[in-house]
Structures are given as structure tokens and as C-alpha cells.
């Protein structure tokens, strides 16, 4: 703040559009932050591969009946003729892999493993995605409120999050599932279990989102644009949802992408432990549990669902990491 101010009258027409370097920008087409992030993401081949697999898997889940109709057999059809009558293990090498049964057949029951994995993707993705939606919705709401209002509201929400985070959620869900009736709120069978899984996984997931949103809100609320909005007469709702929320979308999106694989694992673990969807509905975790009985004789029955879970989780994580780097090049790494 020194010299140039003293002879302001000598300066060029002061309200002409700034200096030439600044006006040079006129020619460049405006780019939104979204476009910039997308351009960055395009450079990241690993993340793109992850994203492509996620997309592929989503399509597989959506068109499961079609795919199974073309390439497999109904998921609950017992193909006893494909089993060795003596051992009840699949006939042929690699757990019965053939052009007819792409991933072989189940020991004992003879169901088509490929079909069950394709149908299992529906359950895994549906539960993981909806649970993430629940977690993000609750986490964003409570996180933004805690961060913006502070004081006792923040204390209350933060302590609640601490309690939930230290809760043994797996044990809780198992006991909850075992006491819940089979029919609930008009849902029956698998529907109940899926609903319960979504709500419970989502409910135990929101504090993770809540913490991140709270932290971000704490720093964002000090920005002068929040004060500017207040000085224009903007109310709380305007500030929370119009000024702050758009700035939270990026971290929320990234966290949601990274949360889905965790949810997939949780769902698989619950199904493995018998607290997931009920048989005969196919699920990856349930298949792993079934495979446990015969893995010494038919390891392939464990390899297929195991590998599917692994690749899916990896793909989501790679994509989520890439997304984070693209949205916030300064953070991480």
C-alpha cells in the first residue's frame, strides 16, 4: 500500500478494464471447475480403468436377467448332472468350468456359479450404494449443522458420532438381524434383509461422512463469502444449502465413492456370517461361506466370488482416489 497511490490522477483511466494481462482472459472460453476436474481425471488412466470396471459391473447388475439368459443358467437351478455322483463335487477341471458353465458349478447343489455371481452383484451394489446414500444424507446434514452452528449443537453431534464410531457395528447388526421378524413394513423375505442392511450399514457409516463434512464446514464458514451472503440478508438456510453445500459436494462425492467398497465388504462379511440376505438369494458373501465347506476339494468355488469382491473393491477404490485427486489436486499425495 504505498507509492502508486499518491499520484493516482496520473494513472490511465482507472475504470478501464484492469490491465492488459487481465483482459487477455476475455478470449479464453470459461471453464467450470467440473470441466477442469474432468480433464484431470481423463489423464489418470488407472482411475479411468477403475471407473470403467465400476460402470461395467453396474450394467451387469442392472441387466442380470438378460446376461444370465444369454450366457448362463437360472441362478437357482440345480444341475445335479454336472456333479460327480460319488463326491458331489463338480465334474471336470477347475470346478467344472466349461463353455456352458463359465465359472463352473457349485459343489453339492450344482448351481451355475456365473449366474449367482451376476445376481450377487445386484445385492452387493444395491446394498452398498443405498447404504452410502443413507450415510451421506445423514452425515451431510448433521455434519454441516454441527460445523456451522458450533456450540452445544456441535458438542452433541460430535459426541454422538464418537459413540457410533466406537460401536461394534458387526456384532450389533448380527444380533439385530437375528431378532427381527421376517416380515416388516410390508416387505418380505430378502426385501426385509436388504432394507435392514441398507439402514444399518448406512446408519453406522454416517459419522465418517459427518466428521469430514463438519471439518470442512468449520473452515468454510469463515470464508468471507458467507459473511457477504449474510450482509445481503441471506438466512441460515441460504448459507447452509446455497453457499456451503456446493463447496462440500466434491469431498462428499469422493467419500461416497470410497465408502461403497467398504459397504460391499461389510455386506459380504454379514452374508458370510449368515446375517445378510437369506438363501437362496445369491450374494457374494454367502457364496464364500458355502465355499468354506468344500474349499479343500473345490477351491475354485471360493476363488470366483473372492476374486470378484477383490476386483470390485479395488476398482471402486482406484476410481475414488482418482476422483479425489482430480477434484482437489492440492490434497493427498
Amino acid at each position, binding site marked *: *500500500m*504505498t*507509492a*502508486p*497511490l*499518491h*499520484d*493516482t*490522477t496520473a*494513472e490511465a*483511466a*482507472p*475504470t*478501464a*478494464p*484492469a*490491465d492488459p*494481462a*487481465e*483482459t487477455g*482472459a*476475455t478470449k*479464453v472460453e*470459461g*471453464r*467450470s*471447475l467440473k470441466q477442469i476436474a474432468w480433464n484431470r481425471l481423463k489423464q489418470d488412466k488407472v482411475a479411468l480403468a477403475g471407473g470403467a470396471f465400476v460402470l461395467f459391473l453396474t450394467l451387469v447388475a442392472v441387466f442380470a436377467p438378460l446376461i444370465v439368459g444369454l450366457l448362463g443358467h437360472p441362478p437357482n437351478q440345480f444341475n445335479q448332472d454336472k456333479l460327480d455322483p460319488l463326491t458331489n463335487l463338480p465334474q471336470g477341471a477347475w470346478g467344472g468350468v466349461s463353455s456352458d458353465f463359465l465359472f463352473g458349478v457349485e459343489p453339492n447343489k450344482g448351481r451355475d456359479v456365473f449366474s449367482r455371481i451376476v445376481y450377487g452383484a445386484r445385492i452387493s451394489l444395491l446394498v452398498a450404494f443405498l447404504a452410502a446414500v443413507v450415510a451421506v444424507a445423514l452425515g451431510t446434514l448433521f455434519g454441516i449443522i454441527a460445523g456451522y452452528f458450533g456450540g452445544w449443537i456441535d458438542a452433541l453431534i460430535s459426541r454422538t458420532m464418537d459413540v457410533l464410531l466406537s460401536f461394534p457395528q458387526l456384532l450389533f447388526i448380527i444380533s439385530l438381524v437375528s431378532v427381527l421378524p421376517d416380515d416388516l413394513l410390508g416387505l418380505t423375505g430378502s426385501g426385509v434383509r436388504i432394507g435392514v442392511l441398507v439402514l444399518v450399514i448406512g446408519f453406522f457409516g454416517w459419522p465418517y461422512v459427518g466428521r469430514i463434512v463438519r471439518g470442512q464446514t468449520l473452515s468454510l464458514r469463515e*470464508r*468471507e*463469502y458467507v*459473511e*457477504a*451472503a*449474510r*450482509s*445481503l*440478508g*441471506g*438466512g441460515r438456510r*441460504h448459507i447452509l444449502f446455497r*453457499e456451503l453445500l*456446493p*463447496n462440500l*459436494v466434491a469431498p462428499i462425492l469422493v467419500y461416497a465413492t470410497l465408502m461403497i467398497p467398504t459397504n460391499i465388504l461389510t455386506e459380504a462379511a454379514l452374508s458370510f456370517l449368515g446375517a445378510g440376505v437369506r438363501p437362496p438369494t445369491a450374494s457374494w458373501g454367502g457364496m464364500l461361506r458355502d465355499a468354506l465347506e468344500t474349499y479343500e476339494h473345490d477351491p475354485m468355488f471360493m476363488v470366483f466370488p473372492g476374486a470378484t469382491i477383490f476386483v470390485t473393491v479395488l476398482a471402486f477404490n482406484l476410481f475414488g482416489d482418482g476422483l479425489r485427486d482430480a477434484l482437489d489436486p492440492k490434497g493427498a499425495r
Partner: protein
Amino acid sequence: MSENAEDKAEGKAVSIPAQADGAEPGTTTDATAGETAGATLTKDAAPGEILLKVTGLQKHFPIRKGLLQRQTGAVRAVDGIDFEVRSGETLGVVGESGCGKSTMGRLITRLLEPTAGTVEFEGKDITHLGVGGMRPLRRDVQMIFQDPYSSLNPRHTIGTIVGAPFRLQKVTPEGGIKKEVQRLLSVVGLNPEHYNRYPHEFSGGQRQRIGIARALALNPKLVVADEPVSALDVSIQAQVVNLLDDLQQELGLTYVIIAHDLSVVRHVSDRIAVMYLGKIVELADRDALYKAPMHPYTKALMSAVPIPDPKRRSAKSERILLRGDVPSPISPPSGCRFHTRCWKATEICKTTEPPLLELKPGQRVACHHPENFEDQAPQDTVLLSAAKDAGELVPDAVLAESAETSEALAAEVAEAAEAAGEAEVAEEGAEKSNSDDK
């Protein structure tokens, strides 16, 4: 902004609504002018009338500690200030970092709730109005923020940002919001085509122009600018200051411009308030303040400003260095808050707080032993030892000048001279240095 009345930018003036000439800045020909007639609470105060009046304003930020959040103390950011802003004028507010300038700005725009005191706008007490009560007044009082990088929401386009005032106040300008926003963009010297761009595509100076456009959208009467150029490149600062100046001429705005030194404020202000630790220590017409500052702190601040006049440039040695740091606003010094760093401080400065008095017409000062004026407490003739230490960093010429209005300092200077004459080694550092000086 008394200067530069003539140097309007040619290219831009056309886009501003028809204006009364600069002589009557209070009565702009905007849509609101029609309401003036006869109303007691006139929509537009006549120039020179008091637009904003602040009395005994305080803001203490509580310091809370421990699990129970008990209050253990308070930051006395603004601690009892009085001033008024007249319609059409520019009041500059200066002071070191942390002296409470921004807090003051946020109090008068009612972004903060005052701890005590009153704020009156156009005669209406707005001290404790809530969000709803303030909403209609938000049109009349606007703020320009310091940091152009944090004052614009990165996720909103320029169109959304500059159009927000209309949406939040639920007013639809003639011709629609988009057209009005584009007009405002050209008023502040930006390309109206940039309507759909995001803030990150603009430079600091351009962003500050966007902030100015937003502040002007609703045709405010009072604009509070909190260090509007301190985050900008030196080369851009003058442009932005000139833009503010031009807009004032053309729109009849009243400004409170906050700055941390006098160089920005001196060319645009009609009056200047000098703040120190949450208090106004001197409030005077710009010319009076520059010709004869009365508060020692003002004098010190002014000595730090590079002098544009080449004849006085040799006077660099007159620069006054202040001893030590600004004391904490949590427990400010007793009496006069400047007494820990003042070279004229006596016992009364430590015990009694000097009131802000209008010693000369148009010049208020809070000091017991003002500069360039007769001593207000001549009975106090003994300097504090801290003052002697402080005096070491003050150039001789300044000390001599100060001594003219202070018995105590004169006595001290004389005593030092005597000591030098007797060629005695003084025990006290201050005395020693004073004798060296002689």
C-alpha cells in the same frame, strides 16, 4: 473522496444511471429518490447529514476454556467508540493490525452483535435488530471485503454472485436480473460477457471489482470497505481505489474505508479516524490531521508513511519507531492505552483514561498531552520511565517538537542536558541516551 472529482473514466460513465452532478451526492437519481419528499425518515439523507451514528460501541469476544466452556476472559476488540458518518463523505479508519477495525466494520454492518453501545442508521436504532429486522436495511448498508479470494463463492458464477443481492432481497430490477448484472459488471469495468464465468478465472483486481459490483447492486447508501486493496498487487491498488472514488462521485455513496496504514486512506478520505487497541484516539478532518496531528500515536503512524513531497523526503530521520508490540486486547493497559509506548506519558496517562474531546473544530483527540496543542494536564510534570525508554526511539526533532507542548518532556530534556553538562554517567539508560542526544 474529495479529490479526483474530474477524472472520471470516459468509457464507463455512460453505463451508470443518470446522475446528479457530484455536488449533491446524497440525492442520486436512482429508483429510491422518489421517496424523499416529505418523509421524516428520508430515504436519502441530504449531504452532510448524519447517516450513521455510533455511540459507546463495544464488542468483547468471550474467551472460553475447559470442558464446561466457562468464560475466563474477553478479547476487547472494540471497547467503546463514538463517531458518526455523514452522508456523502468518506471516513477513513486506520490502525495497526488487531486494533479492532474489522470488528468495528462488522458491527456497523451488523454482521456482529454489539456487546454494548448503539448503532443508529438514518436515525433508526439498529443495534439489536435480528436477521429479519436487518434484512430491509441490508439494501442500504453494504460491505466490500478484504480478501478477493475468499469473498466470492468459488462454486457460483459471476452472474449468480452479482445477482445474489436481487434474489436475496427479492427485488427484480427493470429489465431482469441478468441485464442488471451485466450493467453492473460494465460499471465496475468488467466485460459483461463474463457473466457465466467462475471466480477462479479472474485476477485479484478483477475479483475485487466483482465484489464491488455485488456491493453496489442494491444501490446502497453506506458502503463499508474493509481493507479493499490490501490483498492486491501494488500496481492494481490505485485502479481499485480510483474506481471506488469514481463510483462515489457518480452514485453519491458514503464510504467507511478501513486500512491499516494512512497511505491508502489519505487520498480518498474526508475525515480520518485513528484506532488503537479498540479505541478511537483521534478523529479529524483529513487536512487538519495531516497538517497537525494531535495524538502521539497518529504522529507515529504518519511518520511511517512515505512522504510524497520531495522537499520533505530528507525528513526520513523523523520516522518514529514505537517501542515494543501492541499490548493484548485481552488485558489492555490502564488509563491511556498508548501509555506503554508513548514518549510523553506521565502518571495521569497511567491512571486516567483521556476522553475523546474536540480540542479544535473538526479535530477530536483522546490525549492528556496532545501534540500541536496546549497541554491538557500541565500539572503532571514527571515522565514515566517507560516514556523515557520510548523516547530513545523517537528522533530528536520530534522530541523537541513534543517538548513544546509537554512540561514533563521539556523538563526531562532539560534535565538530560544538565546531566550531560556535569559529565556524569547517568544510571538510567533513558537519561544516558538523552544526554547523548544533546
